[in-house]
């Protein structure tokens, strides 16, 4: 079992003819993902890795019976690409693009309240159900099939902790990067709810970072609504206020909101063990399984 993506997911790659889109499409196909179409304005009729390209998402979805898309479109055009996916409408849009202006994402957030489409990201490494389907740039080799649901705001940190788990023979049902931007489509709570309802997910790892209050809200949700145990990690304990730590969303406000300490305390209060090191997260997961 898995959440959101599996062998039945038919995927459109938005921006498939670009460097990133082309490169990662091949890796997605090799991994076993049903990449059924590409959508690139003005490139309809071409093929990439044997997959047909359409001019619009709407046409690609109709012709190839697609229900999801992954967005590899540069920041200046990515908002438009996301709207196109939402309005098609697809069931799932995964936005990999980093650097979309925050005000644009505020408009996307408004649109998300009006449609049934789920957006993951932007600035997400993607989502992977080991052994069959990945949408995004996650390295397939790092993941393995198992019982842990994985949610993270970061890419390489996910790979790191997953690697710590893999070395102990612990695999994943599904792993998703929800994105390092301040405004994102799928929150920790949304993702936790999906894993809570997945009978095969026995433990969830939630890997947060400084900035905003999404982790605190998630901690309250875990305390009130979850039976599945959760293990946590929070990056950015040493980040000074007012500085953006790589991710646009990873910033402790100059007033002191969004600190790692506040998030760790909230998670601990909800009974979630928060590891000091990646290895400790793996210890905690092993204890919970």
């Amino acid at each position, binding site marked *: 079992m898995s959440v959101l993506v599996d062998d039945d997911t038919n995927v459109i790659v938005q921006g498939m003819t670009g460097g990133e889109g082309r490169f990662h499409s091949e890796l997605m196909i090799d991994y076993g993902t049903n990449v059924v179409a590409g959508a690139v304005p003005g490139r309809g009729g071409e093929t990439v890795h044997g997959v047909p390209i359409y001019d619009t998402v709407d046409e690609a979805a109709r012709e190839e019976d697609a229900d999801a898309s992954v967005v590899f479109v540069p920041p200046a055009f990515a908002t438009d690409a996301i709207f196109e996916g939402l309005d098609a409408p697809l069931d799932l849009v995964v936005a990999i693009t980093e650097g979309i202006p925050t005000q644009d994402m505020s408009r996307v957030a408004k649109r998300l309240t009006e449609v049934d489409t789920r957006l993951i990201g932007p600035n997400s490494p993607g989502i992977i159900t080991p052994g069959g389907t990945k949408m995004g740039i996650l390295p397939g080799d790092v993941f393995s099939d198992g019982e842990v649901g994985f949610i993270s705001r970061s890419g390489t940190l996910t790979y790191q902790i997953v690697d710590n788990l893999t070395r102990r023979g612990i695999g994943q049902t599904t792993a998703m990067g929800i994105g390092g931007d301040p405004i994102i489509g799928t929150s920790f709570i949304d993702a936790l709810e999906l894993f809570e309802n997945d009978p095969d997910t026995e433990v969830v790892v939630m890997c947060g970072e400084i900035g905003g209050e999404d982790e605190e809200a998630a901690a309250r949700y875990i305390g009130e609504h979850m039976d599945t145990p959760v293990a946590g990690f929070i990056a950015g304990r040493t980040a000074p206020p007012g500085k953006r730590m790589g991710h646009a969303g990873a910033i402790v*406000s100059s007033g002191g909101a969004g600190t790692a300490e506040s998030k760790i305390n909230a998670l601990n209060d909800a009974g979630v063990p928060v590891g000091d090191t990646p290895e400790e997260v793996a210890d905690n997961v092993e204890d919970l399984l």
Partner: protein
Amino acid sequence: MKLHEYQAKEVFADAGIPTPESKLASSVDEVLAAAEDVGYPVAIKAQVQVGGRGKAGGIELVENDEEARAAAESILGMDLKGYEVDRVLVEEAVDFVNELYVGVTMDRGEGKPVAMVSTRGGVNIEEVAEEDPDAIVREHVDPSFGMHPYQARKAAFEAGVDQSIATDVASVVKTLYDLWDEKDGSEAEINPLMVTADGEVIAADAVMKIDDDALFRQPEMAEMEEEAAGLDDLDRKASQYDFDYVRLSGNVGVIGNGAGLVMATLDLVDYYGGSPSNFLDIGGDAKAERVKNALDMVFSDPNADAVVFNVFGGITRCDEVARGINEALHEFEEIEKPVVVRLAGTNAEEGMEILDTDLVEVEATIEDAVQRTVDIANEVSDQ
């Protein structure tokens, strides 16, 4: 990106928000000339990007040439929380009876812009928010419509702004929102918005931050950033090399790939009793040139005593990363600081075998690599 006060005031004034008369000056003579033009009393305000300038001695109110000269001599060239003051704003001193607060920011939890009004201006608004959250009225805005004028009025009246000036305050709020929207602001703030005895409102301070991710479509703001720069050499270098870089105060240099992993590496440095000197994310591409630039950054930082290079190879395989690191290392005549490398992920073992151990130390886990680097850095700093 944060504009300097003088730049933000220029932008606000152009949009029609009343601001005090002022002039920028970078020498004592210029200060005196500016004060003459503006007319005493004037405030002399350091133009640096740090909070609490007043308390740190960066703002002085002066009545005459003699006082202006003394203030200019003390402020120009002073070190304000690590930044050298090279420009001051010479500004008409406003005789006020009341100080308000107005601001616009993105409420990331709600995913919506929010405008804020408070009658408790002139003090640290974050402290007000903590002690008495109801003293700040918040009005969320639907980003697809923008702010309706009634929303600005509603916020002003609800905050308890005096009826005689409420519509003027509302007009400032609406203008500030529109500016924030048009310029891709992340934050716009007037604190204090002064009210004079004649019932005029005037922006005595101005804060404008622009979303870094939107600078590609805000050429005018990008130009102001260049002018504002005030970056020290390392920040400038990081921007040339296109790295996400944050300078910190410790002695352990950190290089890694991916924001989350680099943050976690900094945290581990702290966990093992060290203190990081920087955050540096080289991103997904670990080719030789980028590696060399990253090492150059950390080698140029006088605070760094040792460097931990922590890469998780996913799509970029570790053997490729290792070749990149070797190639980069060979381009330096001398490895100026001890470097500890740890590679993990795809082809990690091959990668670690390839690394030139004459030039770097290699550790197998993130925990061991950080611990080792902290030990080396502490030895160096003890010498």
